[in-house]
């Protein structure tokens, strides 16, 4: 009987080793170890053997069965892995086909740039405040020290609101522009974010350090001027804020937006509400301030800064004492407090930073363009 067991075991192991599919192995399992198979039958016949033979025979039969079982298990694992591999390979897809589309959204470039600017100034210690877009002549001009004949007041440079029948009349300054039949024009669309300088000082004590992002309006329309655009105003008032501080703040800003290597230049100018007033030029980020494109063959003149190495980015200055006085609060006595103000165009920063040469598409909102700028 032992011989018979040995023979069965060897034959079984040979068959298992030769099997190449999981189905064949399942058949072998049934055929070799199943209820009707020879080996279990032999095992059942063990009890008919003489007692002294029963032990060795039963042990041998069990061992044979276990050997076959584990050989089948091992073989199944190997064959199944190979079969899975074959099946998965058959499931190959073309990975160059497109993905399933997800709707793609984005912020408008102007919002992106506005957030960048806000975040830079938050880091420099400025709060962010906003204000109304319709304004009084008082807040937009008078309180900002604009002379009665300052050209910015001209209806060609300012959108005045038509007189309203439902709003109370406002006091009109002498020489204010008038309607065709002589009525004073006292309300307007703010031409700059600067009226908020006054509004902030009217409601808050110094020290104040704020920026004011927002939409402003002027009747211009060409490639680099749209009748609505966006500005960021800055105001910092305390007892000891200097022109040197203005330079430090705006240098930090310029480097954050245009690159660590940038320098700025203060160029004296005139604004009614600052004295002294300076325009700020930043060294050109396209040519590194050299005026020539050293990265382009032939080193042509830089088109962005027109060969000057400098790009004007904003207007600024020390807040004029008349503006502080016009607030009408002792806390803003110009002998006691002082500070700087600046105003920049978000569109201008966006154009310089993202290489646009025409503003109008930003307001056409062609989704094919906005998506690229988002």
């Amino acid at each position: 009987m032992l011989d018979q067991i040995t023979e069965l075991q060897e034959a079984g192991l040979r068959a298992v080793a030769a099997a190449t599919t999981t189905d064949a192995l399942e058949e072998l399992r049934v055929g070799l170890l199943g209820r009707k198979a020879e080996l279990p039958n032999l095992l059942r016949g063990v009890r008919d053997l003489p007692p002294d033979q029963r032990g060795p025979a039963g042990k041998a039969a069990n061992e044979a069965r276990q050997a076959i079982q584990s050989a089948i298990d091992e073989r199944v694992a190997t064959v199944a892995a190979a079969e899975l591999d074959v099946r998965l390979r058959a499931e190959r897809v073309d990975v160059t086909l497109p993905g399933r589309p997800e709707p793609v959204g984005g912020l408008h470039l102007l919002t992106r740039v506005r957030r960048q600017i806000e975040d830079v100034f938050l880091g420099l210690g400025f709060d962010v405040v906003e204000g109304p877009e319709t304004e009084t002549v008082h807040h937009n001009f008078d309180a900002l020290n604009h002379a009665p004949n300052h050209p910015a007041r001209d209806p060609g440079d300012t959108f005045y609101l038509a007189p309203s029948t439902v709003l109370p009349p406002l006091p009109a300054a002498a020489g204010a522009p008038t309607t065709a039949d002589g009525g004073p024009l006292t309300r307007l669309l703010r031409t700059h974010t600067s009226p908020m300088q006054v509004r902030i000082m009217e409601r808050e004590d110094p020290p104040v350090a704020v920026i004011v992002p927002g939409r402003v309006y002027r009747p211009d329309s060409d490639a680099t001027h749209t009748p609505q655009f966006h500005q960021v105003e800055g105001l910092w008032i305390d007892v000891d804020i200097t022109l040197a501080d203005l330079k430090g703040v705006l240098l930090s800003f310029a480097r954050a937006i245009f690159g660590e290597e940038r320098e700025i230049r203060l160029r004296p100018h005139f604004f009614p509400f600052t004295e002294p007033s300076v325009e700020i030029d930043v060294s050109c980020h396209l040519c590194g301030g050299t005026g020539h494109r050293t990265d382009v063959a032939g080193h042509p003149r830089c088109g962005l800064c027109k060969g000057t190495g400098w790009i004007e980015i904003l207007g600024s200055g020390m807040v004029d004492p008349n503006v502080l006085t016009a607030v009408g609060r002792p806390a803003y006595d110009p002998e006691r407090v002082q500070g700087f103000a600046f105003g920049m165009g978000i569109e201008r920063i966006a154009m310089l930073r993202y290489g646009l040469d025409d503003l109008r598409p930003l307001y056409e909102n062609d989704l094919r363009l906005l998506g690229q700028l988002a």
Partner: protein
Amino acid sequence: MKAPLSWLGELVDLAGPPALDAETVAHRLNVTGTELDRLLHHGVRTPDTVVVGRVLAADQHPDADRLRVCRVDVGADEPSQIVCGAPNVAAGQVVAVATVGTVMPDGMKIKRAKLRGQASHGMICSARELGIGEQHEGILALDEHLPDAAAIAPGTRLSDVLPHADEVLELEVTPNRPDCLGLYGIAREVSAATGAALRPAPWEGETGPDPAGDAIDGFAVRVDTPRCRRFTARLFADVTVGPSPLWMQARLAAAGQRSINNVVDVTNYVMLVTGQPLHAFDADRIAGGALVVREARDGEALTTLDEEARTLRAGEVVIDDADGPTSLAGVMGGDRSEVHDGTVRVLLEVASWDGPTIHRTAQRLGLFSEAATRNAKGLAPEQTAWAQALATRLLVDLAGARRVGGTIDVGGDALAGDPDPIVVREARVARLLGAPVDRARQTELLRTLGFGVVDPDPTAAEGEGALHVLVPPERRVDVTREIDVVEELARLGVVADLTPTLPVRRRLTAATLSPVQRARRRVEDALVGRGLQEVVGWSFTDAGAAGRLGLADGDPRASAVRLEHPLSEDQAVLRPTILVSLLDVARHNRTRGADDVRIFETGTVFRDQPDPRRPDMPFEHAALGVLVQDDLFAVKGLLDAVLGALRIDGWELEPVDDVAFLHPGRGARIVLGDDVVGLLGEVHPTVADRWGLPRTAVCLLDLDQALPRAPERRPVRPVGQFPDARFDLAVVVADDVSARRTLEIARGAAGPLLEDVTVFDAYRGTGIADGHVSLALHVRLRAADRTLTDEEIGTVREAIVAALAADVGATLRG
């Protein structure tokens, strides 16, 4: 303001050493406050190749009637042959020859050429071709214009005897610097900015009281308005009106002024040097010999010398003679008293006016002449004397004029004497600029600008002294206070190398965005995250937009704020709702082929109603608009996302059928607490059609109301460690029972174990009775401390079913 460099060089020494070229001058002006618009080249681009020539012969061209073949001595070994088409060319003339290689003002290059078979080496030029005047009927015969032309050796560079080409600085003069609307003012700036020596003013020593007195026989001037601050007049007889000398024509041309005749040219020339406008009357056309300066009456008429009939307004200023208005003061003369070819007596008016008055008049009439532009700034009354002095000399020299009588000098109280000096504290300068400038340096800088400076206590320690500064007349409009002097010091002596510093924030809070600003960013980011593109539309729209939205006239959304002077009818009013710009953007993209527009915008909308927050001003509020080409539920899902991002719970939609631009069956108010904060729904198909849009859903949210309600956090409910129990119910209710009502009943009945109940499907159709809807509810229950038993779950389920049956007659669907 155009400043020709050679003219400037007559007023300030640019020859050096070091010699200053146009670019250096422009750069120095640019960094000290006078911005350069551009640097122009006026005239022939290669001036050295234009030489004086003598026409030796001018013979008829054998093959062209209108051409002559000239032999011209240009100083070379051999005369040049030049073919010339001018009718006036003749042997013996001294002419200007553009030799081969010359580049003319328009860029044309003179080459060797053959004209009808005859070689031509150069061009004999007309005045206009050289850019020095208007004349172009023939070539410029120098012998008719230059006194010693015959003595000029042929071949001499023309520029040596007649400067004709120049670098021109086109400067942007800021409104505070009317002194720089005159070349001498610019010359002073150049001197201050470069250190070049300023030459004495051309009127120096000639501006004192007139020894001939203050009367002119036969002429009288009366000033009846304080808007005239000084009026001076001189009379000139024996005037010969004719062309100006070439040098003057050339200078005027370079400065952008047309030459008219010698008298008018003198007034323009003097204005360009001094900044002070002048006006020449034909003295014999001043009716009655008397001028009265007065304020106009409303509706008075006057024809100005541009031959326009003008109607005047009260408060504007006119000059009358015996026949009525003859000049629009400070803006433009009248045609009645204009100088003409036959004029022999000239009354020269130089007056000083109230700037705002002139500005307003010029503004109203759209008449910013060179004179009005300058007078509108409010010039110094002292300047009138400068202009009279210089103009007198030139009229005598160039028009053969003879002065008659004295100088009438009336009006205003402007010559009240010098103002008090301005005290400039040394410490104040340092405190404002963040850099000290000692008194010696301050004195040096201010004197280059013509300011008088006195240090009353030279022994004061550094930082403790003060200067007394006297401002010259031409700067008194701008410099009236200590700070104005500080500006002069800053621009000339400080800004170029100021060491940057950073200020300290003394407000004891960190700088942060406000909760509302953070909330707005969350709204924007939530929509971007759902695949919407932000757009930025126009605040402007046309007056018909409200009508296109179907809004009745009385609708508050139809009361648009109007602009007084819109750029166009398309931009005549401010948008009363953000829906307008969203629809415009959607249409723009749809006509360009976009088939799935998903956009949003945040922005301000305006109404012609008092704003409760500032009753003097129109109502304005910040709005969010969302637009998708989809149905109501798509846009409601987006609203859910927005309010979720804002952590706002407990909002509801209430159906509306009376909002004109919304589908009457698919519109809703967004309700938060007791307030309506927005609208949502499908755009009325008629309205959508007006914008060429298919089914479009929008959500309009008043951000001024919504954002402040966004809490920084909301209560946190522990998720617990025990699983929730879930089951679905399909209940059939009558159509008029809203899903909201069904859910309210279910919530009320479910008790404390309820975590959440939602509607996940609504079905009408086969198997459901007419007028009914089957709502599929998804219910989740949870207990914090145990796994719920089937029995507990069953109890809740039965309670919900029973309550729905009792309250709205709901039946369980099979």
